[in-house]
């Protein structure tokens, strides 16, 4: 087992390098960062030369990639003063500084992570709870009214684009309630600046975005759970369990559910890293201060270090999550043994 983990970790390393190189090459395609550094006038030739030496832009692309990875504080950048470079490299956590705010990228992103996780984490918990309940109930009561209704509704919900779901919910639960004179849900931000960031404010502001994210995924997941459960329920070992006289409840929840849960764990596990960046549209519509919103704002300002940082972090998260899921799978399913 330990050998398997080590082997997978070693396999992930070239993967991460490929990802980082793709992103780095993309960043090179974004254009000439020196062009705008002169402020209001075009950058003068002498400044351009000095800046390009300081920023390492006069080096060939492979060297630039190397510096991006491991920094240039071990190289003398400026032969006039003998100073070494300022960057410590991505591998040591230095993702550069934002073009716009001059803050270190990692700091900017790190500040947004808690709020993003608050939103998507809550949504994920809600999604799992409701999908499991609905999916299992539907599978057990196959072809009942509930089942047929739910299947029809979930097909529709599953196809709804996120922004339509968001606008519809806003129209119903915010504008609709407001026009009826009832307390209504806010549609912007994470708290009301006049009141301050209280627990109540955050929860109140969270309702609409969480609902937007959840409803569509619940439709998808619950259908998947339903079909997995049905497959398992119709299998021989369940029939054996029932014929042995095990209560229906125990059969379902201990035997059937555990087997149906395995592929679900894979799905959820692989979804986890996308919790960080996946809610772009929702965060933009609701002005929720998360990573997705940061991405969009940086995009409109062409703040490429931040954009690269976000992409890289999520990609690393995905690779690690895949490894975690694989290991978890071996722990949970005794039929699988990796050499």
């Amino acid at each position, binding site marked *: 087992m330990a050998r398997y983990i080590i082997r997978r970790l070693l396999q992930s390393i070239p993967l991460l390098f*490929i990802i980082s190189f793709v992103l780095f090459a993309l960043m090179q395609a974004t254009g000439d960062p020196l062009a705008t550094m002169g402020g209001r006038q075009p950058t003068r030739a002498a400044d351009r030369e000095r800046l390009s030496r300081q920023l390492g832009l006069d080096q060939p692309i492979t060297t630039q990639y190397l510096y991006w990875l491991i920094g240039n504080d071990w190289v003398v950048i400026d032969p006039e003063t003998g100073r070494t470079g300022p960057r410590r490299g991505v591998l040591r956590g230095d993702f550069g500084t934002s073009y716009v705010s001059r803050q270190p990228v990692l700091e900017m992103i790190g500040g947004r992570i808690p709020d993003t996780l608050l939103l998507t984490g809550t949504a994920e918990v809600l999604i799992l709870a409701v999908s499991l309940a609905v999916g299992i109930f539907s599978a057990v009561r196959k072809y009942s009214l509930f089942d047929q209704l739910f299947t029809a509704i979930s097909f529709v919900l599953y196809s709804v684009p996120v*922004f339509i779901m968001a606008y519809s919910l*806003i129209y119903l639960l915010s504008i609709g309630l407001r026009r009826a004179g009832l307390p209504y849900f806010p549609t912007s931000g994470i708290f009301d600046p006049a009141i301050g960031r209280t627990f109540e404010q955050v929860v109140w502001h969270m309702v609409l975005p969480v609902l937007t994210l959840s409803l569509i995924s619940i439709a998808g997941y619950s259908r998947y759970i339903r079909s997995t459960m049905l*497959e398992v329920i119709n299998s021989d070992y369940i029939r054996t369990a029932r014929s042995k006289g095990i209560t229906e409840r125990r059969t379902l929840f201990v035997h059937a559910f555990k087997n149906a849960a395995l592929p679900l764990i894979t799905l959820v596990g692989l979804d986890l890293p996308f919790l960080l960046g996946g809610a*772009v*549209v929702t965060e933009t519509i609701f002005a929720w201060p998360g990573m997705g919103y940061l991405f969009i704002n940086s995009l409109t300002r*062409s703040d490429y270090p931040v954009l690269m940082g976000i992409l890289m972090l999520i990609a690393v998260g*995905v690779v690690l999550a895949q490894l975690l899921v694989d290991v978890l799978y071996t722990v949970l399913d005794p039929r699988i043994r990796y050499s």
Partner: protein
Amino acid sequence: MSASNRPVRLLGNEEGYAKGSNRALKRFLKHRGAVVGAILLGFMVVYVIFGSLLFDEAYANFNNTKLRLLPPSADHIMGTDNIGRDIFARTVYGGQISLMIGLLAMVVSVGIGTLVGVVTGYFGGWIDVVLMRLTEAMLSIPTLLFLLLISNIFGGRVPQIQFIGRTFSGSVVVIIIIIGLTSWMGLARIVRSLVLSLKETEFIIAARALGAPDYHIILSHILPNIVAPLVVSATLGVGNAILAESYISFLGVGVGAPTATWGNILEGARKFFEQAPWLWVAPGLLILLTVMGINFLGDGLRDALDPRSDKAV
């Protein structure tokens, strides 16, 4: 053995058996959802084609700010937008672009996915290792964010093009290519595993023993046997491409003005969505119906074409 003077059997031949493809058709027609999906999509196609016979493109782009933000009326069935353009006409022409982007992006992604899948599955070796690492790497990068970034970088660089009598902003081509470039990975993996298992079947081994060249084996034996997942993936791929285009246009980095798409009509609706719900309800509903139709259709195709998926539904 022609059937010209025999009574026609529905879906069967002279011996009374239905051919494989006819069985699939029968299964498809039995699936209510699939038929509904096909009807919905048919309606969409009719909508964008015949709608363009009702108005011409100039009318769709014609703006008159005195008529801005009018609710639906007899003159403008779906109302007008913030600079006075008729929304119905815009959804017709926008629909043409959205559907076209969906189809063409799907072609790109199915093309790349099949190529990568067949090459890695059939030839193996170092090309398999390299391409599979690349596939995994692309799968690890979050798609929507990546799309947004590339669209932002390359979107403005292609000039306008003329095609079937319409002028398109160059960003349409860029978007088709980049959506195609970011959605081929799933199909590549499916095709690869299919090809790997096909390689060990007796008829392929026999073909190679007989000295058939690789390209013949691939074209005549392998490709026809991977058609089923290809078709399902292609169908669902169109839906994903339409959704992807609508998301990036909605966020402002997709297809640029003045070319309309359903996504960028919705982008224009962002500031006014409370006071003018007709701005987003109509194009939103159109996207929803199209994607729904595609999902129904894809589900039906999957049930019809994959005999192994005869599980309890």
